[in-house]
């Protein structure tokens, strides 16, 4: 900000930065270190700096215990599948809608755009409970051999964990603003060459939209991986549960904190690894949520 900062100020800033770093890093470090210790050692070490150091009887026993206590691999695979499918469908569905809003004029396109923008501020929690009632009444087509039959009720399925979160007003809005910044001369040139609208979407606009795709992917993946309230209410079958709901299993029996810390570390690592690999994209996507203000 200011180039000629005095030495005193720089020292003060560094000290403040280190204090804040300790505040944010130490609890997470404590979580990881505790996941390697037996419960008795965790509570013995808690009064000293050893709480943050992997010293003493270090082992992966807690991690082995996690897989004995809960079907952790199943939970991880469920969350991975649900998140990836939601992200893939979300990119496809929302970018197509945004393309239609940005490039094509159709009846009601203006109105649709303002409706999308108006819905941005409505939090999921305002309609989550009526939604539970509603998905229980939705129909679904199932194949029995060659016969198609209708069934009712989406509770206890994978689809109920994916489909409600595919279409997203904010993703549409992000794609829309990005598409608006792509010069129209590009699609006009393609049209002169005889390309249809769908081909322009696929071969001209989407390949140029990498940053918007990354942003939508991140902003869809994080809440999908972290989802808790929704699967808590709509999924009762253990085999269909995602990781965050799986965490509650550890509090039903005797509380074994080392294992809980191991499970917490285990379900945090995939997201943390993604974040560290794509830091810039993560930070940019968060910053982009502020653009509409």
């Amino acid at each position, binding site marked *: *900000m*200011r180039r000629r*900062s005095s030495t005193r100020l*720089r020292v003060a*800033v*560094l000290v403040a*930065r280190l204090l*804040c*770093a300790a505040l*944010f*890093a130490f*609890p*997470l470090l*404590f*979580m990881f270190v505790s996941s390697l210790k037996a419960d008795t050692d965790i509570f013995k070490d*808690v*009064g000293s700096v050893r709480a943050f150091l992997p010293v003493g009887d270090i082992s992966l026993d807690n991690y082995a215990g996690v897989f004995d206590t809960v079907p952790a691999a199943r939970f991880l695979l469920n969350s991975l599948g649900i998140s990836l499918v939601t992200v893939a469908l979300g990119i496809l569905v929302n970018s*197509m*809608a945004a*393309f*239609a809003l940005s490039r*094509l004029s*159709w009846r009601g*396109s203006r109105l*649709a755009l303002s409706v999308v923008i108006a819905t941005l501020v*409505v*939090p999921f*929690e*305002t*309609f989550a*409970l*009526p939604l*539970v*009632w509603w998905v*229980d009444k939705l129909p679904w087509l199932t194949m029995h051999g060659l016969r198609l039959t209708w069934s009712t009720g989406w509770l206890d399925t994978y689809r109920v964990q994916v489909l*409600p*979160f595919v*279409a997203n007003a904010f993703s549409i809005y992000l794609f829309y603003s990005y598409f608006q910044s792509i010069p129209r001369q590009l699609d006009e040139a393609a*049209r002169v060459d005889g390309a*249809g*609208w*769908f081909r322009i979407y696929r071969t001209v606009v989407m390949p140029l939209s990498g940053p918007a795709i990354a942003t939508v992917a991140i902003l869809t993946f994080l809440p999908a991986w*972290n989802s*808790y*309230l929704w699967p*808590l209410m709509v999924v009762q079958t253990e085999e269909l549960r995602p990781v*965050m709901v799986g*965490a*509650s299993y550890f509090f039903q029996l005797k509380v074994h904190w080392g294992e*809980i810390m191991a499970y*917490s570390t285990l379900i*945090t690592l995939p*997201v943390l690894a993604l*974040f*560290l690999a794509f830091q810039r994209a993560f930070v940019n996507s*968060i*910053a982009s*949520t*502020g653009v509409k*203000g």
Partner: protein
Amino acid sequence: MTARRHQHGQGRTGLLMVAPGGVLLVVFFFVPVALGFALSFTDARLISPKPLEFVGTDNFARLLDDPVFWTSLRNTLLFAAVIVPAQSGFALLLALLVNVKMRGTNLFRTLYFVPVVTSIVVVSILWRFMYQPDGLVNSMLHWATGNVVRIDWLNDTSTALPAIMFMSAWQAVGFHMVIWLAGLQTIPGELYEAAEIDGAGRWHMFRYITWPGLRNTRTFILVTITIAALSLFTQIHVMTGGGPLDATSTVVFQAVRVGYQQQQTAYASAISLVFFLLVLTVSLIQRWLTRERSA
């Protein structure tokens, strides 16, 4: 000729491309929002073979007489009243700290952001552990003050909600730091250079350049933190289950308890409607604030 044919197909292609998203938004957003209004005037239950009956404003009359609802509303508003200024102020401080050009800036920014990508469920579990009477928080306090501290943070009506406030701000503050930072970086550096030539001090620069330059960012941050604070649920569900003695029950928590655990969809819809009105009020205030300033 070709161009005209494409022009002609626009309407159909447009509807075709918007259809998947449009249908999903209608089924999973507009219908449930409308249902929320409609069901709150009925006796709907989650799983019930009985047909719906219209009950007028019974659910709202019940709401007015429900002490747990009022406690939950009070807790929610209290949580928002503390968390909004505390978290946005702390986030601004962090943003200013990492906006100084110095070595290691990226490392610090990354560190401050890590709790944001950590799930709130994990963060709640971790802090539930640290808030144990023989846990890390008390032993840190012991180390800092020299006195043995044995506060049962989450089981004491006077400390449970403040403890949850602190860990919530800890988790989310990095998010708003990034947004403040994006705002800070839109302020042209020449303004500071000119002020420096005029001999302005740091406080004056902040007061007359930085603060006014962050006007839009400020409104956005206040609104997002307020709405997130009003939606408080996961921390409560994981850490206290609303207790002790409803001291940490919130509006959304109460809606879930009634609507999911007790299966009373209609009454939960009425509570959700109150929550919806709270959020609506906040965003209308935002509209009003931004409109007045741009005029």
